[in-house]
């Protein structure tokens, strides 16, 4: 993924973060969205280690040793932020108080299944908070490279890895495309500038319906 493609993807996905929303941004790429939020969109960010009102990342010199996000980054507090324990933090998640979560993925299936925590025999660091975020948030959006480092599509007919949650994904943002998960599969709605519909279809290991109007981002 080129720096340019990544920036465009982040710009596009950031429109998901709408005024008035309470949002959890997953570790990695999703966390970076905080720098791309639309001006005038008052959102409140949740960090599952026990904070609402998460502010931007801060350099080490300004870091508070007791103030990190769930990815371990040193963050700041905004006016109106609050700290709480891990039980209350996930009570918010399971109670459905979040409006949106943006998560990374190893695989997303055409029915909305998500696998993002375990590659058997290779990578088993643990489940963390992903399962509850994926299963319980009203709107789950995936932000990921379209293909893995070996050029394999992360968008698949059926997940081969252990699932994080079933039928949880509403939309997928990649460096190549924006796709929605419908009852009967995926629909391609937007594609990155410079790519054709065929480019995206070829790079995707799941069937894609094509929207009547395709927007470029």
């Amino acid at each position: 993924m080129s720096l340019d493609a990544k920036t465009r993807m982040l710009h596009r996905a950031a429109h998901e973060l709408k005024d008035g929303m309470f949002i959890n941004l997953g570790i990695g790429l999703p966390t970076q969205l905080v720098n791309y939020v639309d001006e005038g969109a008052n959102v409140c960010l949740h960090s599952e280690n026990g904070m609402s009102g998460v502010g931007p990342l801060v350099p080490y010199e300004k870091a508070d040793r007791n103030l990190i996000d769930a990815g371990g980054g040193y963050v700041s507090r905004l006016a109106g932020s609050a700290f709480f324990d891990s039980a209350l933090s996930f009570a918010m998640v399971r109670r459905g108080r979040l409006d949106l979560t943006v998560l990374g993925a190893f695989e997303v299936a055409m029915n909305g299944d998500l696998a993002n925590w375990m590659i058997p025999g290779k990578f088993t660091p643990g489940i963390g908070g992903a399962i509850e975020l994926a299963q319980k948030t009203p709107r789950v959006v995936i932000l990921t490279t379209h293909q893995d480092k070996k050029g394999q599509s992360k968008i698949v007919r059926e997940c081969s890895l252990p699932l994080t949650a079933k039928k949880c994904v509403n939309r997928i943002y990649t460096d190549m495309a924006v796709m929605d998960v419908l009852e009967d599969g995926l629909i391609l709605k937007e594609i990155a500038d410079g790519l054709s519909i065929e480019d995206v279809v070829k790079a995707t290991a799941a069937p894609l319906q094509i929207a009547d109007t395709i927007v470029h981002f």
Partner: protein
Amino acid sequence: MIIKQSDVREAIARIPDGATVCVGGFGVPGTPFYLLQELVRHGAKDLTIVKNDANERGMGVDHLLKNGQVKKLIVTHIGLNANAIRMMNEAEIEVEFNPQGILAEKLRAAGAGLQGILTDVGIDTTLAEGKTIITYDGRQCIVEPPIKADFALIHAAIADQTGNVRYSATAQNFNPLMAMAADCVICEAEQVVEAGRLDADLIHTPSPFVDHVVEIAELSEEYNVIRR
């Protein structure tokens, strides 16, 4: 940040007939008398009220009872309200009694998105009658369901405009749990301040659990010390 300050009429007008409404408070401390007064004016009927107690005669929840707005009370104790006891005995209202800590846990279970809790509280008593009992880890347990509410009316000492809330002394009681349990949480506060004025370390109920913040115009007599 998201500003949640609201007018008391607009906030309470959302409550429809038949709603389940949690009401904070244990006796006077923590009871949202200001919101209850508006709920009486608003007049929504057939309400299920979840509260520790039914206040005393002529106070708080008793106004709803007298105004015929209550179908059912889910409580732990109504001993201080002779009117509520009379209405229960004459079948004008239905009353469900819960052990106090179990009422708290059932509200919290809803607030924590759990499907239920297992407890042995009351296992050997009449309170276990009619409940689901399972054997788990070799012991008999009652399965207690969450109490999920449509609304919660809570009372804060101080809140900020984004809905971060602090209680005073024993006025905390059920308020934080009811804020977790309800789909829509309306908080009255003795004082509402700007975002950033409350220390983020010292919040009792964080803003994600609060939908509307109403400043109390003036503390009524009901909030005062009761002289018996």
